[in-house]
């Protein structure tokens, strides 16, 4: 009997690991930036390029930084949720318009609705790199002290919003 116990044990161990592996998404790379201060930047505002925006203006508030672009198809999936979020005024969202043409971006917002407190243009994607962006859309939750608390990779879903992002925002706002 014990002769079969060892191979069975090995098989179960391997099976458990492989099964766990099936549920992991290799596209979701944990960000080393979570728990660290959001990178500082100064970028022109999309709708008035002579003005600039820096994250310092959001000090003392919990806010979201949503990386988006007009060429990003997946951004359309999450956009209605963003619009809804802004309509209910739950949390301010700043848009990082990533490697986009400002004219295309403005047209896109007119068409799909503009949920952003403000959008800033990252024409060359340099600020995106500082934030470790590798796929658009991405969303960062930033707390009152300017620390990144969470990074959501890919389009935001209703589940992600309800189960992770909104509870986190609520906790951080207290």
């Amino acid at each position, binding site marked *: 009997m014990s002769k079969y116990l060892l191979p069975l044990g090995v098989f179960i161990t391997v099976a458990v690991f492989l099964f766990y592996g099936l549920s992991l998404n290799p596209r979701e*790379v944990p960000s080393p930036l979570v728990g660290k201060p959001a990178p500082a930047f100064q970028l022109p505002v999309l709708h008035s390029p002579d003005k600039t925006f820096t994250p310092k203006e959001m000090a003392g508030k919990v806010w979201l930084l949503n990386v988006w672009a007009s060429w990003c198809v997946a951004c359309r999936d999450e956009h209605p949720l963003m619009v809804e979020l802004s309509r209910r005024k739950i949390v301010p969202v700043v848009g990082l318009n990533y490697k986009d043409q400002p004219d295309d971006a403005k047209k896109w917002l007119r068409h799909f609705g503009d949920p952003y407190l403000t959008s800033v243009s990252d024409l060359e994607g340099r600020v995106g790199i500082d934030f470790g962006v*590798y796929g658009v859309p991405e969303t960062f939750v930033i707390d009152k002290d300017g620390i990144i608390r969470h990074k959501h990779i890919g389009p935001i879903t209703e589940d992600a919003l309800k189960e992770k992002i909104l509870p986190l925002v609520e906790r951080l706002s207290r």
Partner: protein
Amino acid sequence: MRALLALLVWCAAGAAFAQIGQQTEADKRLVDISAELRCLVCQNQTIAESNADLAVDLRRQIREQIADGRSDREIIQYMTDRYGDFVLYRPPFKATTVLLWLGPALLLIVGVLTLRRTLRQRRALMADAPLDEEARRRAEALLADNEEERNDT
């Protein structure tokens, strides 16, 4: 006059070659560094190989940092600060990667030990089974039968 012209051409050529030399040195470093880094968009390619937009941007970033005189280590650190250890094709040895680094060696050791145990058991089994009188007689009878059959044919 001709000598002066020759000297001028020689100098210009020298300067040109020097510039090419410099260029290739920086290019070589760019290739070396970007070959160590995983592209996050197409995860089985290095930043050197990938044509993804992000890889192009990251190569630009590396090129600028080389021009700024940063060391290879500083540039790699810049990347891991933003994208984590995942971008390294050779991950560092630390608590979370112990199994990754030592797992294969561990499996090899377990395999060798199992093999040794199995071989020992088998040898012991063979040595411990001498034929008793009865078995020897049967074996001889069988061999004799065999002999007869062969003679018949």
